[in-house]
């Protein structure tokens, strides 16, 4: 049976204060950080998924925070979080506190760009949506 796809049902929810502790616990168990995903939860909040892995198995956690909030960085635990946390800062306007290298929203974007591309209130202009 193939197992390449996993529906994200009943993903454990993290509290903002437990993010780093949770990451450290998983690192101690021998897991690696596979990816992080940010996605609009509703008009006011954003979900941040943490995807950890061991061998071929994945373990997911979800953190729901208000748009524009500060989130503790796990890059001190998993250096691999460096790029993805900076990318989420660029795309969703969250701030990761304690990033080992903070690009201040210029990892992918120009320094003079103030819009937050992945916020649901930022739409691609109709002239380009044909």
């Amino acid at each position: 049976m193939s197992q390449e796809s996993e529906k994200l049902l009943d993903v454990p929810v993290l509290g903002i204060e437990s993010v780093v502790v949770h990451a450290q616990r998983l690192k101690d168990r021998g897991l690696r950080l596979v990816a992080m995903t940010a996605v609009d939860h509703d008009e006011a909040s954003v979900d941040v998924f943490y995807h950890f892995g061991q061998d071929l198995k994945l373990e997911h956690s979800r953190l729901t925070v208000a748009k524009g909030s500060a989130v503790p960085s796990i890059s001190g635990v998993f250096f691999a979080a460096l790029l993805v946390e900076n990318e989420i800062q660029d795309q969703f306007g969250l701030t990761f506190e304690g990033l080992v290298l903070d690009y201040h929203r210029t990892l992918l974007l120009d320094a003079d760009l103030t819009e937050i591309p992945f916020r649901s209130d930022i739409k691609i202009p109709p002239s380009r949506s044909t």
Partner: protein
Amino acid sequence: MARTVVPFGPQHPVFPEPIQLKLVVEDEIVKEAIPTIGFVHRGLEKLAEIRDFHQMVQVVERTCGICSMIHAMCYCQGLEEMMGIEVPDRARYLRTVWSELHRIHSHLLWLGLHADAFGFESLFMQLWKIREKILDINEATAGNRIIVSVNVVGGVRADLSTDQQRWVLKEVAEVSRMVRALEHPLLEDITVKHRTVGVGVLTREQAHLLGAVGPVARASGLPLDMRLLKYAGFRELEFEPVVETAGDAWARSKVRFREVLQSAHLVRLAIEKLPAGDLSTPFKGQPTGEIVTRIEQPRGECLYYIKGSGKKNLDRVRIRTPTFANVPPMLAMLPGTELANVPVIVLSIDPCISCTER
């Protein structure tokens, strides 16, 4: 000599795509490397808001030219799982054939660039000459040489006739023979070994902790290969991941060299076992739910997160590409090395910047 910062890239003869490394050096020894990306960011994920989920197949294919087919395959298999679509067996095997052909031409492209990076231009020409055979197969079977665009949600849109199967088997056998003939100059030549053995070492522990994937992880002894998740034809096709243990640039090229031969073998197996049947499964409805799906690209594990809420446009498509995962391990390979080794080390992760930035 005092510490100096040397900007390496974004335009550099060894880089196929733009990335910059700010190298902190002392007496030509690298002490630290800080990456700068963002030169080719296109905002492809944002396009999910205005392209429907069928059109997004063509968008994700353009994440990366070299592994375009495998991006589309990963995206489609995520949606198929989400919508409960059973892909016909023939389509699963055809996907396997084209994805392994992609792995072969991607690795041959990289092996050629690698040879060019350390100045072995005739080897570079030989490897790219072999690669042309795979591109000819793509063109003859799918209509395009690189972006073959064979995937649709529910299956594939192209087939292999019996004549084409025979021809592909013959050509792939010829590719294997030609690649084997280059084993000595590529892996045993004294100059090549001088430039690659012991260069850019990544230990097994570092590879795991830093999240290395694909040939970078396997060259450091981690048997991490997403094909073991048994997607597409790998549900039935048996294979063992190619693993080396030295963790240096030489081991990374050896893994890719061996994987070219392994992929040729898998193409042969998939064609020999190609079941009869339909190419795709018709379906109705719109995707609903959240899913994570993974696949093994030539550069390693690729992860897609897809969220739909019953509309023709998806709420979110998130792509974590293998180079994105291999940048932190690359930063660990550089400190302590000579400046002259930096091009070889950076290239040894097979960086794909358009993938990384999307």
